[in-house]
């Protein structure tokens, strides 16, 4: 490529756009379906029960400890499919790029998208690029959509949780939220906290032998653990009790949250899963999960109980409610 920055011509449909698609996108994502450059991807799906999802990514900064917007955009959509009990097959990517964006940065981001898709065995089969003028977007926005086929024998929904079900959390929480805040606001936290962004498909796949005992799965992204628990409680009509002492979280993450006046239970994650499972099989599922590198610190953190509320048994042995956050959490003054 001759230029080192994106210009409006890269989105105009002319030769510059063709070069960009060839060199940056096809070069990294290369596969037969995308390479055909048709208006839509033709897919042969092995089954007719599919899951389909979409998500847009506007994270700031675009590069952060542990990942970048590209990895996030692929893993996020793959995770949404995975927690629905689907095997992800193909995804689309759509870029909205601000004029002046560095092509070298775009290459890096596209490279991490390709790596994340490859790791999960998924093809990026169709895409789109738009360039907007300066100040009309914040660098780069990415949308990804994905399809996957549903695993036989697994039927999960946020409505299927029953009283008595055990709640399993796959690992230490709040790392993505803290890492983003630290790098966006240049807080200089030490030690550096990395985002946990990762694709959870293989983790969930490792539990397929327990399919009929898994009633619901969720990835606790925005709003963190508290949001997931409240959504499940509302949809399934159960109460949920979790135990503060059992929640896996790094000390440095707790310290960072204490310092900023934020609640680690409400901070975002991008590579975690909350499982709601038959209590009789909870321990077996837990030991299976722990064999995966993403879930070495998995714990049973609580259970579904009578009622409609989500509450926490504190370290003090008392109880307090865990209601949904209203509005954005603002760091405090002192």
């Amino acid at each position, binding site marked *: 490529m001759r230029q080192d920055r994106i210009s409006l011509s890269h989105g105009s449909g002319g030769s510059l756009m063709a070069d960009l698609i060839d060199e940056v996108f096809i070069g990294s994502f290369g596969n037969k379906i995308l390479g055909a450059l048709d208006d839509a991807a033709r897919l042969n799906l092995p089954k007719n029960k599919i899951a389909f999802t979409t998500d847009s990514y506007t994270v700031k900064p675009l590069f952060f400890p542990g990942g970048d917007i590209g990895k996030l955009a692929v893993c996020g959509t793959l995770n949404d499919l995975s927690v629905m009990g689907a095997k992800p097959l193909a995804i689309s990517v759509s870029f909205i790029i601000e004029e002046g964006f560095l092509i070298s940065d775009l290459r890096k981001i596209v490279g991490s998208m390709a790596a994340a898709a490859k790791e999960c065995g998924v093809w990026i089969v169709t895409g789109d690029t738009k360039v907007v003028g300066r100040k009309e977007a914040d660098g780069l926005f990415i949308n990804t959509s994905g399809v996957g086929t549903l695993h036989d024998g697994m039927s999960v929904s946020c409505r299927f949780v029953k009283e008595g079900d055990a709640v399993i959390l796959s690992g230490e929480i709040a790392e993505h939220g803290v890492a983003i805040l630290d790098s966006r606001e240049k807080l200089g936290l030490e030690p550096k906290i990395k985002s946990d962004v990762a694709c959870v498909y293989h983790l969930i796949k490792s539990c397929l032998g327990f399919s009929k005992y898994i009633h619901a799965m969720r990835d606790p992204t925005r709003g963190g653990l508290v949001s997931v628990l409240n959504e499940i409680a509302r949809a399934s009509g159960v109460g949920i009790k979790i135990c503060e002492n059992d929640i896996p979280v790094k000390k440095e993450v707790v310290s960072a949250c204490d310092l900023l006046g934020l609640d680690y239970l409400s901070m975002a994650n991008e590579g975690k899963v909350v499982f709601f499972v038959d209590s009789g099989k909870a321990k077996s599922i837990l030991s299976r999960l722990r064999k995966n590198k993403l879930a070495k610190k998995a714990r049973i953190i609580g259970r579904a109980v009578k009622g409609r509320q989500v509450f926490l048994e504190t*370290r*003090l042995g008392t*109880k*307090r409610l865990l209601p949904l956050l209203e509005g954005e959490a603002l760091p*405090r*003054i*002192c």
Partner: protein
Amino acid sequence: MKYDRIIEKFKDSKISQRLLKDINKVKDDISLMEVCGTHTVQIFKTGIKSGLNKNIRLLSGPGCPVCVTAAEDIDKAIAIACRKDVILCCFGDMIRVPGSKASLDSASANVKIMYSPIEALGLAEGRPDKKIVMFGVGFETTIPAFASVLERAKKQRVNNLYILPVFKLIPPAIRALLESKYVNIDGFILPGHVSAIIGENDYRFIAREFNKPAVITGFESADILEGILLLLDMIKKRKPRVKIEYSRSVDSKGNQLAKKTIYRVFEKTDVDWRGLGRIKNSGLRLRKEFNGFCVDKIMNIKIKTPRNNPKCICGSVITGAREPSDCKLFTKECVPGHPVGPCMVSSEGTCAAFYKYGDKNEAG
């Protein structure tokens, strides 16, 4: 790492459970005030509130800087931030506080959220075309950072940085509370962060003049419970004193360097507190040598005396005279997403804490 391990002790559940048990052996009706907003939140968050017997009442005091800022000062900040040549730098939880007509995030204001005042200095250097105004909000904890930034700006001859100082000092507010007899308070849980700066000596009047005990307390569950226990013991023995529970961060003299920095740049003055009115020597203004940084020097902003919503009882909540649930607006018109009064805005505000963790839907 060593310090980490010390902190872990204060989060230790067994130690905290034992302290709670001892507190709950006391049968007298006792009202204690936690002055600091961080304490209010921690008392809910760690489950202390739901674990205490009903005879031990914890009242929240005027220790949330957002909550005690007078509406007039917020109106002034909004008016400043609406000028095209200005960028107003303020802390995050300040932007939603309602003034008399709008808040900083709803008015068409040029606002930059800062985590530390030093960011404002960087912004001033990077944007010579703009006037950078720091909204100087906070107690003794945050004031030294503002003072040191102004000293640095003076040294570097930065000529587009200004400050709207509405700082508040804690000891005069406690005196005002005790003198006014707003509420019946048997003892004070004093703020840890503020005290790390000012030390113990400035609080001695609480015991000497008003015969009330007070304990400078840390923020982990065992800190707060030990603080309460020390207060109960002094109340029982009728030997009021000012004690330091948070001794790992606070000593009697405080942080001399920080205090000197404050008073090289600022001097005491009378200011208005939301809920408490005008209190003598409870705020700060720039000293003569630093007057060039005063925002009033470059713009003449006149603010009409604002009207607060007459139904809002934030004023009484701040003084511990009434609880959020006594307010007709609480959880109805006034919720965190749409706050009417300042106590619902800050995550450390009493109403926001009650809303999030509190009695409106007590855990079963």
